[in-house]
């Protein structure tokens, strides 16, 4: 039988250290909604999402109440919309149907306004990508992602060039809200098909229909656990593993139970440390607890590498199916420690880029000056994609060029998206490189067959 100390520890984790299940995300296949009529497809999409997802919020809330563990987000991911509307060009009709369906079932975000163009774009996919600014600025709940590279295919630089312009247009269309549409758009290299986290979630075509994924969290729990470790780095790594194991077991329990009650397939547990802007829920503060004066100091990349690895090692034994992005997230606007370090000039975009080589995703929720040219944004995307491609890992870019604001100003997004100081970027022009177009070939080590 469990003892009182263990019960007390679990309660303290939840109560004092912000342990929660960050997201339960129901993946819904829309492949059976394909038709040659945009109107019919949109209606089928609305019907399927509202039918499959109608009990998601209530079920997650019931489980949260019974187990006494907060489940923060309840969300839906769908088959990339560019695939299901290719036959009829009805992407804007479908995103409106999805936005309405998300509101109907009571969720704040739904992911999957997505195109996978890592090797090349069809004419329709380019048209789809060009619709993203209108799509994101005229809907509230739908998130978008574009995969522009893979280790296997290389990097589609035509898509990279286009995405720099698309991000700027998203920013301009929502200039009155600190360019918030950009917070709903992720540019990926090596995108995964079972990611439960927004804004980059979509339901891959290799997935079963109705699959329930869970993303765990708990930076505060790891930070608290490390406060009692005064030994060497082996002991630090072991404590992180032990803590990640416990956190992940809770995620696995919630995943199985939610799937069972919804009649859905059990998906993956994403072993993530996802921060929120609340004090005591910061990945930066874990790195500082390990021994840095501030995140961004020399040694930050090494600490993050160890943290990321230990989280995976601890979590992987704790869950039957591990997937998604799995690792530590470093979204600037959603992490109190990152916000502070950026505002004080202790953490730069170059250091953040280095950190993305060893953590789970990429340059996430970073506010940059509103006058940053499209080709500079494309250059940042290309750099980040190169890191992902060469290291066979997922990398992503979610940048917000905040129109009308510059270095020293703040962007305010509200809620879980937080706020971010606008940090400088290197504006030496990569225009000639970006304008060349074509494809950066896949690296030698991608040829494994």
């Amino acid at each position, binding site marked *: 039988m469990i003892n009182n100390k263990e019960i007390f520890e679990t309660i303290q984790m939840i109560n004092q250290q912000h342990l929660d299940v960050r997201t339960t995300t129901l993946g819904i296949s829309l492949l059976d909604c394909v038709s040659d009529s945009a109107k019919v497809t949109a209606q089928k999409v609305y019907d399927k999402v509202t039918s499959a997802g109608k009990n998601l919020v209530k079920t997650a809330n019931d489980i949260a109440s*019974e187990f006494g563990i907060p489940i923060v987000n309840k969300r839906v991911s769908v088959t990339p919309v560019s695939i299901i509307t290719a036959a009829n060009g009805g992407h804007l009709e479908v995103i409106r149907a999805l936005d309405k369906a998300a509101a109907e079932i009571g969720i704040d975000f739904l992911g999957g306004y997505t195109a996978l163009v890592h090797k090349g774009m069809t004419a329709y996919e380019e048209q789809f990508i060009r619709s993203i600014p209108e799509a994101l600025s005229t809907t509230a709940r739908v998130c978008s992602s574009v995969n522009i590279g893979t280790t296997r295919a290389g990097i589609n630089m035509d898509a990279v060039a286009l995405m720099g312009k698309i991000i700027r247009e998203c920013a301009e269309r929502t200039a009155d809200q600190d360019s918030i549409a950009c917070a709903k758009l992720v540019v990926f290299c090596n995108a995964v098909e079972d990611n439960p986290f927004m804004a980059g979630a979509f339901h891959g075509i290799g997935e079963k229909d109705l699959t329930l994924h869970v993303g765990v969290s708990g930076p505060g729990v790891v930070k608290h656990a490390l406060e009692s470790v005064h030994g060497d780095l082996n002991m630090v790594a072991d404590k992180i593993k032990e803590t990640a194991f*416990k956190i992940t077991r809770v995620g696995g329990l919630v995943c199985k139970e939610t799937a069972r009650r919804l009649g859905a397939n059990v998906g993956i547990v994403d072993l993530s440390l996802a921060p929120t802007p609340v004090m005591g829920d910061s990945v930066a503060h874990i790195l500082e607890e390990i021994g840095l004066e501030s995140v961004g100091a020399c040694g930050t990349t090494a600490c993050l590498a160890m943290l990321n690895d230990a989280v995976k090692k601890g979590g992987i034994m704790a869950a039957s199916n591990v997937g998604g992005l799995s690792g530590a997230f470093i979204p600037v606007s959603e992490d109190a420690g990152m916000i502070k370090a950026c505002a004080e000039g202790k953490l730069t975009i170059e250091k953040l880029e280095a950190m993305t080589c060893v953590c789970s995703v990429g340059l996430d929720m970073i506010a940059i000056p509103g006058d940053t040219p499209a080709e500079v944004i494309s250059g940042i995307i290309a750099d980040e994609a190169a890191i992902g491609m060469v290291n066979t890992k997922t990398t992503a870019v979610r940048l917000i060029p905040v129109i009308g604001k510059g270095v020293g100003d703040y962007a305010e997004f509200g809620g879980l998206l937080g706020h971010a100081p606008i940090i400088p970027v290197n504006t030496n022009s990569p225009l000639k490189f970006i304008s060349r177009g074509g494809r950066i070939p896949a690296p030698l080590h991608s040829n494994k067959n």
Partner: protein
Amino acid sequence: MKAIVSVIGKDKKGIIAKVSGILLEQDINIEDISQTIMQDYFTMIMMVSVSANSDVTKLSTIMNNLGESLGVTIRVQHEDIFNSMHKL
């Protein structure tokens, strides 16, 4: 199923009496009970047996309200969250 009822806060008279009174009203059997001081908190933990058709969420709400009136925190949680975290 089994659930864990935990009371954490400042010790005072009548906590066990009131918590167990509510459990009796709800037809819930107490299987184990202990109390101790943990990290300076008074901690009382009960393992209770809840029938499959009991409304744990409702019990949880009643206990939360009782906790507020006593100035302590009372939680009712399915035992599986503790088992999953601490047992292989």
